[in-house]
Structure formats: structure tokens, C-alpha cells
């Protein structure tokens, strides 16, 4: 008794020590997760990155200035001119509200941070939260050791870093935390069967719905898990408690988010959860009846229900076949909706899923290449027993982290144990038992895990198994010791394996830090390049936006391809025609058509939209590859999708996209070509495009309906103004005649200029 008491005391001290250690480790993990994402601020500056974050930043500014009700009802008239956009009803408010609340709290504590600073650092803060949530989730599944490993891995998994560096103020920044936390609460509810956690789970789900369209992952993955549990015969009341409240409360809460609204019950993404909701009730009924009736009666009841059901089905189907024949369209629609469900699984917004060319034009929605897969997950790829789209990589990352966390910690577990068992066996055998228990705080959790695996078998026999979780701590120890003995590996192998694992981990850390520092921290509005004569900074975007905001009227409209819409409204504060929220395909197609039309037709399109300025991004001078010429085929495709007179083959020579002298006349005369290459030949005399690595096809031309008003330092952004309609209409007499008379005049002009 005394011995066991002492052992208890020792183990409880160890537990306490382990907990304190775990706490500090977690704290450090948080610091790591936060600080590894600060490379962008250190290397560049504290600035919002890329495209979507600028919109979120603008919305947050509006929220902090005008309050939540005005934000909810915000009708933005500075974008999608002249349609406008109801921001409050079309935006996932989670991120904005989170950052707004943060800012409000800080300000009420008299910490006067600007909204921009709060926005920049929201993502790093929430990645710390996300790694803690990972710890909780993995701990719930596998134990604290695995939890800590998974948390470390997640804190620096490159794919997550890519979306959450400081300044990357996007929905994913908070959504990944919400995602992991929701799963944690789901597992917690499963393990405890507590309604309290089920309610918390629904609230976490609500936060996820607020934050990101990716909430459909949750509402599809959890039903899948439930269904799997049911199919494998693991139904229990805890499963029911974990699932049913989530569906009911979660759906109610989700429909409170304006952007989701009735979609929560009407779109196909959510149908799976409702189907499983029905199934789980049927299963619950069956289990209940099984418990009430004797086995014999149960068989009779099953036979009765099945026969009656079959009859009803038969009657129903004959009736429906007989009466509602022309319903094939419905079937097709259903099929389509299934397809759209699949697409929507892969893409975040239901808007976008309708417009395939636009989705495809977003690089995030394209299948990742294997190098990028390796780049983003790195070592974890070997540890995960596993073609996805790029955005899915982000969701894959936590799963990969958790799985590799478990794998790593188990591997360490096995190897260290085999070392421990073999080293002391040389000296003292009695210490073995203590030695086994001592090094890891993992042990109790390990048993929890074992208990869990045994859970299902126990479930069937008795339903009060909850209390058993603590019970086996003592009992299976002896059993597990025998097991552990069997798991012992040779000493040398273990040592080498541990060294290899440490190396692997070190490699992962090095790679992650490198990725965070080099690959993912560029804000994309400021570009840098290293060359033999030092560092070059390309700040053309902000130069152009500043020019717009200082030199144009407040109500002027600026047309550009939609990629630059958010930045133009946020940085230049000018009205744009289309932006990155690609909700109206026709409008985008109109701009695409204008860009792919000849000058006059384009002028008419733009003029009808009250456009004053046209902005194009051109990388040919400095070799910036993601410029408008490279995106141009998408403009043609999207434009041609709505306006059939734009045909993609007209822009391709033998199926090849080229802008050199072999380019088609349509290509060389379209507005995008002209605006990009206007006066380009003046730069080097040859008009050599460094992105396409060729000389352009048409070098000398004049613009008749547009005039160049601004070109940035590296020619990356060029702004043109639409000329007003001609004041007079010329007569039809041939120019040749008047040319002869105008020649002396122009000659004289030249003469006149000479004195100057």
C-alpha cells in the first residue's frame, strides 16, 4: 500500500512537473509560431500583403470607424461600378470582427495601435492560437507528447506560414485556428459525451462559418466521420450528443451569418450533414428498439418494417414513375448539384463555383505541382500515409501536422523506450518499472488511447464505460509492460533511428525557417530582386496607386483587370469596375472584352461604364512574370464566355500564345497589347520583352482613343486616360490633300521649336 502510495505521490509530482513543462513548451510554441511569421515585417515593412488582405483591411477600417451596424449594412459604391456591392451581406465577417475587436480592446486599454498594425499582426497571433488548438486536439486523440509535437510542427508548417505571415490579413488567418478548434471540441465531445462541449462545438463552428467559406470542410468531414462510426458499428450516445446538437445549433447559427443565410439549408454542401442527421436518428431508434424488445421480437419487427418499407417504396416509385415522368431535368439538376458540391468542396465560395473559367484563372485553384507539395509540407510528406488544389494544401497542413506529430512522438516513444529498457537492464532490473513510467508524461495518455481503442468493444457490453477511463490507469500497466517488452528494438537501431529522426526534424526546421524567410514573406506589392549590383526594390504598385489618389478626381473610375481592384479601392481610394470578389461574371467579361478588343471598341465599352482611367500591369521591362499580358488569355476566355465575338483562337497562332511578329493581327491590335507596349520600343530600341523573352511584334504605333498619363519607374504599372470624344467630326475628303497643305505647317512647327 505504502509503496503504491509513494509511487502515486511520485507520479503526481511528475505529472505536475510534466504539466508545467508542457505549459512552458506551449508558451514557447506560441512565441515560435508568432515570431517565425515576422520575417515579412523585418525584411520588408509592416504592410498589408497581396490583394484580398487589402479589402479586409479596408473593411476593418470601415468597421472601426462606423461601428458594427453600419458595417452590416454597408453598401459600397466604390467598387463594381455601377452595380455597387453590398459588403455586409457578401463578406465573411469573422476576420474583420476579430481584428476590429482586438483593435477596440487595445484602444480601450489605451494602447493606441493603428488599425493597420492590428491587421498586420492578426495572422501571427492566430497561428499561435492555432498551434495551441492543435495541441489540444492531438492531446485529446493521442496524448500530450503527440500534442506538443504536432503543435511544434504546425507552428512552422510552410503551407500554413504562406497564408499567415504578418500582413497576410486574410480569412484563412483566423479560419485555420477555428477549424482546428472546432475539431478539437468535436473530439472532446465524443470523448466526454458532454452537452456543454457540444454547445461549445456549435459556437466554434459558428466562428468558423463567420470566418471562412471553408467551413464546409467541417460540415462535410464530421458527418463523414459519424457515418463511418455508424457503419463500423461504433454508434454510441456520445456520438449522438457530439453530432445532433452540432447540426441543429450549428445550422441555426450559420444561417445567422448574412453571407450564408439560407444557403445553410438550401445548398448541396450542407445536405450531407442533414442526411447523416436522419441516419443517426434511424440508427438511434433501431438501437433503442433493440434494447426494448427481445431478440426474437426484434427480428419480427425488423421483418415488418422492412416489408412495409419495401411496399411503400414500391408503391411510391411506381406512382412517381407513372405520374412525374418529365422529371429527368430534376435528376440532371441533382447530378449537377452533386458536381457543384464537389467543386464547392474544393473552392471557398459558392459564387465562384458557378463560373468555372474564373475559378480556373485563380492560381490557388489549380492543382499544385509536386515540388510545391513538397515545399509546403516538406518532411511531413514522408510521415503522412497520403491531387489536390492549392487551397486544399492549407487544410491538409494541420492534418499532416497532427498525423506526423503522432507518428513522431510514437516513434520517439518506441525508440527511447527501447533504449531505456536496454540500458538499465544492464545494471538494475527493479528500477525498470519506475524507469518505464518516469521519462514520459505520455504514459497516462497512452493508456487513455488504449482505453479508447478498447472503448468500442466495451461500449457494446456496458454503456457506463465513461468512468472506466480512469480505472485502467493501474490495471493495464502490467499488461502494457508485457507489450512494451515485446516492442523493444535493438539498441543500435534505436539510437541511429533517433539520430535520423532528429536530423529529419532539424531539416524540417531549417526548411520551414527558410520558407518563412525567403519564399513566403514577400508582400507582393513591393518586389525585390537581387542582382550583381545589389538589391533592387520595385515599389511600382504603390507609386501608381499614390499617383492615382493624388492626381485624379475622387469620383473617377479606374478600370483594370480584377486582380488590382481591391488594391485600387484600398490604396488609391478610387472607384473600380471589377475587383477580386468575382461575383459578377458578366461585368468581368465586359472588362475582359474591352481589354481584348481593338482600341475604338474598347473605348466605347469603357466610356459606357464612365471609366476615366485604365490601369495595366506590365512586366516586360523588368521581367515581372505575373503581368497582364500573361493573364491576357484568361481575359479573352472569360470575355469570350459571355461575348461570343471574342474568340480565343483569334489570339493564338497555331495554338501558341505569342506577342512577337508571329502574333495574330487580333492580338497585336487589341487594347491590352497596345496599352502594355505603347512606347516600349523607346526603352531599349529593340522592344525586347524580358518576360516572354522575345521582341514584340508591333513596335511603332499611336494611340487614338487613349493617352498615357502615368508610367511608373520600372514600367510595371501604366495608367492611361480615355480621350474625350472628338470635338468635331472630320469631313470625308482624303487626308492626302490636306496633308500637302499641312506639311509646311508642321515643318514650320519644327523650325519654331529649334530655338528652344
Amino acid at each position: 500500500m505504502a509503496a503504491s502510495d509513494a509511487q502515486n505521490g511520485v507520479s503526481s509530482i511528475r505529472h505536475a512537473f510534466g504539466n508545467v513543462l508542457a505549459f512552458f513548451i506551449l508558451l514557447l510554441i506560441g512565441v515560435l509560431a508568432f515570431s517565425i511569421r515576422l520575417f515579412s515585417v523585418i525584411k520588408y515593412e509592416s504592410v498589408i500583403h497581396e490583394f484580398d488582405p487589402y479589402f479586409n483591411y479596408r473593411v476593418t477600417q470601415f468597421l472601426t470607424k462606423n461601428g458594427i451596424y453600419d458595417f452590416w449594412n454597408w453598401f459600397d459604391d466604390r467598387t463594381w461600378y455601377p452595380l455597387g456591392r453590398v459588403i455586409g451581406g457578401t463578406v465573411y465577417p469573422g476576420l474583420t470582427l476579430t481584428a476590429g475587436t482586438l483593435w477596440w480592446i487595445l484602444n480601450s486599454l489605451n494602447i493606441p495601435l493603428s488599425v493597420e498594425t492590428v491587421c498586420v499582426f492578426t495572422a501571427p497571433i492566430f497561428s499561435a492560437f492555432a498551434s495551441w488548438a492543435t495541441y489540444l486536439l492531438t492531446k485529446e486523440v493521442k496524448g500530450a507528447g503527440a500534442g506538443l509535437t504536432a503543435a511544434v510542427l504546425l507552428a512552422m508548417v510552410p503551407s500554413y506560414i504562406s497564408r499567415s505571415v504578418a500582413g497576410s490579413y486574410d480569412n484563412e488567418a483566423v479560419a485555420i485556428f477555428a477549424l482546428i478548434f472546432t475539431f478539437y471540441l468535436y473530439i472532446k465531445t465524443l470523448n466526454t459525451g458532454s452537452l456543454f462541449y457540444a454547445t461549445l462545438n456549435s459556437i466554434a463552428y459558428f466562428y468558423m462559418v463567420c470566418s471562412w467559406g471553408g467551413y464546409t470542410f467541417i460540415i462535410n468531414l464530421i458527418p463523414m466521420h459519424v457515418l463511418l462510426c455508424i457503419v463500423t458499428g461504433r454508434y454510441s450516445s456520445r456520438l449522438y450528443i457530439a453530432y445532433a446538437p452540432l447540426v441543429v445549433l450549428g445550422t441555426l447559427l450559420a444561417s445567422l451569418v448574412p453571407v450564408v443565410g439560407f444557403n445553410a439549408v438550401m445548398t448541396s454542401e450542407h445536405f450531407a450533414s442533414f442526411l447523416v442527421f436522419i441516419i443517426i436518428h434511424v440508427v438511434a431508434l433501431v438501437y433503442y428498439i433493440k434494447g426494448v424488445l427481445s431478440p426474437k421480437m426484434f427480428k419480427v419487427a425488423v421483418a415488418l418494417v422492412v416489408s412495409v418499407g419495401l411496399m411503400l417504396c414500391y408503391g411510391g416509385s411506381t406512382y412517381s414513375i407513372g405520374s412525374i415522368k418529365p422529371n429527368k431535368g430534376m435528376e440532371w439538376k441533382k447530378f449537377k448539384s452533386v458536381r457543384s458540391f464537389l467543386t464547392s468542396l474544393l473552392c471557398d465560395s459558392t459564387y465562384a463555383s458557378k463560373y468555372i473559367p474564373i475559378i480556373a484563372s485563380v492560381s490557388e485553384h489549380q492543382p499544385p505541382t509536386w515540388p510545391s507539395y513538397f515545399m509546403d509540407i516538406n518532411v511531413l510528406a514522408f510521415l503522412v500515409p497520403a491531387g489536390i488544389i492549392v487551397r486544399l494544401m492549407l487544410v491538409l497542413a494541420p492534418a499532416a501536422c497532427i498525423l506526423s506529430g503522432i507518428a513522431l512522438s510514437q516513434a520517439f516513444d518506441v525508440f527511447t523506450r527501447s533504449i531505456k529498457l536496454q540500458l538499465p537492464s544492464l545494471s538494475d532490473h527493479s528500477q525498470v518499472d519506475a524507469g518505464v513510467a518516469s521519462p514520459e508524461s505520455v504514459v497516462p495518455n497512452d493508456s487513455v488511447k488504449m482505453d479508447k481503442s478498447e472503448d468500442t468493444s466495451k461500449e457494446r457490453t456496458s454503456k457506463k464505460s465513461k468512468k472506466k477511463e480512469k480505472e485502467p490507469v493501474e490495471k493495464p500497466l502490467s499488461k502494457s509492460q508485457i507489450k512494451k517488452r515485446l516492442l523493444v528494438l535493438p539498441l543500435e537501431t534505436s539510437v541511429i533511428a533517433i539520430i535520423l529522426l532528429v536530423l529529419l526534424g532539424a531539416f524540417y526546421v531549417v526548411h520551414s525557417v527558410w520558407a518563412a524567410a525567403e519564399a513566403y514573406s514577400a508582400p507582393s506589392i513591393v518586389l525585390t530582386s537581387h542582382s550583381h549590383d545589389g538589391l533592387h526594390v520595385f515599389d511600382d504598385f504603390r507609386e501608381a496607386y499614390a499617383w492615382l489618389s493624388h492626381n485624379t478626381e475622387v469620383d473617377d473610375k479606374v478600370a483594370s483587370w480584377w486582380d488590382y481592384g481591391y488594391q485600387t479601392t484600398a490604396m488609391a481610394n478610387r472607384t473600380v469596375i471589377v475587383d477580386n470578389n468575382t461575383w459578377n461574371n458578366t461585368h468581368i467579361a465586359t472588362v475582359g472584352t474591352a481589354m481584348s478588343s481593338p482600341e475604338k471598341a474598347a473605348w466605347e465599352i469603357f466610356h459606357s461604364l464612365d471609366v476615366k482611367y485604365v490601369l495595366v500591369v506590365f512586366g516586360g521591362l523588368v521581367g515581372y512574370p505575373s503581368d497582364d499580358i500573361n493573364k491576357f488569355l484568361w481575359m479573352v476566355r472569360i470575355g469570350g464566355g459571355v461575348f461570343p465575338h471574342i474568340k480565343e483562337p483569334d489570339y493564338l497562332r497555331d495554338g501558341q500564345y505569342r506577342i512577337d511578329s508571329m502574333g495574330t493581327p487580333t492580338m497585336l491590335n487589341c487594347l491590352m497589347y497596345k496599352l502594355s507596349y505603347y512606347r516600349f520600343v523607346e526603352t531599349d530600341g529593340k522592344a525586347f520583352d524580358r518576360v516572354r523573352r522575345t521582341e514584340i511584334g508591333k513596335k511603332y504605333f499611336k494611340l487614338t482613343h487613349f493617352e498615357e498619363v502615368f508610367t511608373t519607374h520600372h514600367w510595371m504599372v501604366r495608367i492611361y486616360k480615355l480621350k474625350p470624344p472628338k470635338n468635331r467630326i472630320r469631313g470625308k475628303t482624303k487626308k492626302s490633300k490636306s496633308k500637302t497643305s499641312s506639311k509646311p505647317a508642321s515643318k514650320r512647327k519644327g523650325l519654331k521649336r529649334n530655338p528652344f
Partner: protein
Amino acid sequence: MSKLIFVFLALIPLLCTSFSPDRPSDRRVLVLVDDFAVKSSHSLFFNSLKSRGFDLHFHLADDPKIALQRYGQYLYDALILFSPTIERFGGSVDAAAILDFVDSGHDLIVAADSNASDLIREIATECGVDFDEDPAAMVVDHSGYAVSATEGDHTLIASDDFIKSDVILGSKKIEAPVLFHGIGHSLNPTNSLVLKALSASPSAFSANPKSKLTSPPSLTGSSISLVSVIQARNNARILISGSLSMFSNRFFRSGVQKAGSPTKHEKSGNEQFFTELSKWVFHERGHLKAVNVQHHKVGEANEPSIYRINDNLEYSVEVYEWSGTSWEPYVADDVQVQFYMMSPYVLKTLSTDGKGRYFTSFKVPDVYGVFQFKVEYEKLGYTSLSLSKQIPVRPFRHNEYERFIPAAYPYYGAAFSMMAGFFIFTVVHLYHKCVTFLNPAFGGFLWAMF
């Protein structure tokens, strides 16, 4: 103090001569002539301008000192080119300078003649008027000629085919035909800015009267325009005539009898025609301005920055016409306003109170977006009015929808009855004796059944 007065005195000429949008009539007119004989031979026309308060500056067209602008400011409000044969202007003036002068809102009168120079032709072409390319061609009309003792080749024609517009030619009808002797021109029918003020009769054609006609004439019939007026998009007005002698005292004074017509008029219509036409060209007539655009919700006075869908609003604008001396209310029943977003959603004719104010009220359509109040008023002879005012229209706020609608009462009933039922069921379920009902799975099942 004296310094101030000095500054003020120095400013006075500047204030008086500078162009002001409040007084659209021209004041300072530059007249370029081939030789100063024109000044006396066309003195009736010039005197009528002078008597109306114009300040005429005569220069030879090749005078090297002439300049249209100095330090970026135009020195004149209008230009009269009575120099059909000039090949090159003096000073810094050339065709481009004259067209720039027009494009910055100034008026122009061009008189060509049968041997018009390329320079004059180029200016005319740029304005949309194509003179007959044969330099020796004249307009000949063997049935619509003016009876005269001296000229027998029927190149002096009498035309009474005027443009039908009271704004351009005045309300008083021109009784006598107008005498014309010169080159004809044609207009592109698709050109919407140029108008035939005086056209030739259907029997006219344009050819060299001294040579035998070998090929069919390029210009025939009433497609020949003798005098054309152009109103550019910036409301600058241009008069182009194919004949300089039309403006001459001789034509102004001479009597006219159209061939085949028994009536002989004591005096040709030239004087009245050009006096009225010059009034129009120099913006003494037909110049509109719109001011004081107002819009607000019905029952409110202040202009909102945004409307809501289905708001009722009132729109008003004041339109005045320049009479040469003052702004008079413009009265018409065809001024329309559009509520426009890519296409007009509302198109309403404005009613007027006769004092220049036009007003209407309408309901904002059930569409949100960035709309414009647009008044596009383009009427023959008048300057075009183009007003647009941007105004966003927002959807309902979250608390502006109706709270309780009768159609929804069944659903409220369903919701509340289910709540009550669930409550009763819970009570029964929890406090009933039957043990089997304690099974939570069954409870959940029944719950879902509802």
C-alpha cells in the same frame, strides 16, 4: 489705399475682357481679310456686328503680327475668315491653331470662294464640310438662278431653302431668297454636328461653268449645301459659306427675282439671313445653361448622399437661355431626366413653371447600385445640355424590412407550437414513471421527429 485702387484699375480691363461663362456672347472678334477692300465692300455686315456691340479687329491674313493667343490666353472670342485665297496665315496662326481655337470653345465664320485655298479647305474639312474638289467649280442652277442683267451663266443663284429652325434663323420668316455666288460643298450625312443652313435647289449642280461638262458633276441637287453651320461638342459654333460675296454690300442691297417666279423682291434676303445667322453663331441666341440641380426625398429639403431603393424623390433643375443681354427662363415641354445606371431605369419629362425651373418626382427603382441623374438635352439650334450627377442607391438596412408579415404567421405558429410541444414533452419525458423513456436516444429521436 491708392495701391489697391491701382491694382483694381489694372484689373478692370482684364475683368471686362476675359471670357466669362455667365456672358456667353462673344465680344472680341478677329477678322482676317485678303485685303482691306473687303472692310468697305462688306461694311454692312460688319456694321451690323458693331452695332450689336462686337469689337472687330481687322487684320490682313498674312500679317506676320497676328496671334490668336498670348501667354496661353486667347485674345479673341471669335474669328471671321474672309480670306478665301490665303495659302498661309501670318504670325503663329495656322490651321491647327484655328482648330485649337475652336476646340477651346470659340466661334468661327469661314467664307470660301470658287478659288478657295487648300488652307481654307482643310479647315472646312476638319469641321466636316467638304468643298467641291475641283477648284474652279461653282454652283450652277439653270432653273433656280437669280434673274440678272449681267450674269448669264446662271452661277448667281437665288435660294430659299433655309434650315427650319427659329433658333438659328430667328422667328421672323425670311421672305426674299438669298443670293449666292460661289463654291458648293457637301456634308457627310452621318455627321450629326453639321447642319445645312442654306441648301441648293434640286436642279443645282457643281461644275466649272467656263468649261464644257464632260463627266457627271460630283455634287448635284439639294445635297449641295451653300451655307452650313456646325455646333461642335463643346458648343463652339462655326459658319461655313461657299461664297464671300454673299456677305457683300452689293448682295445685301440688290433686289432679287428668282427665275420662274413672278415676285421681284426689293432687297435680297442676305442681310436678314446673315444677321440672324451671326447672332446664332456668336451665341446671342440658342445658348442654354442649366443651374441649381437639386434632388431630395419627398418631404425633405436636404440633398441626401445616398438613396434607398423605393424612396420617393423630387428632382429639379433650372434652365435659362441667353438672350444676348441677359439670361431668360427657357420654356419647353420636352426636357427629360433619366435615372440611369448603364441604361435609364426611369425616364421622365420634366414639368416647368415657366420661370426656368423644371421639376419632377419619381420613385427610385427597386434596384441598388450607383445611379446618375442625367439630363441630356440636345435640341436643334440650342447648345446641348449634358448634366449628370452621381448618386448611389442602397438596399434596405437590416432593420428596415417589415417585421411581421401576415403570410408568415403560420410559420410563427409552427415555431411556437413546436417550442410548447417540446417543453411539454420534456416535462413528460423527465418526470414520467416509465423507465424506458429515460433512454436519451429515444428522447433525441422524438426530438428529431418534430
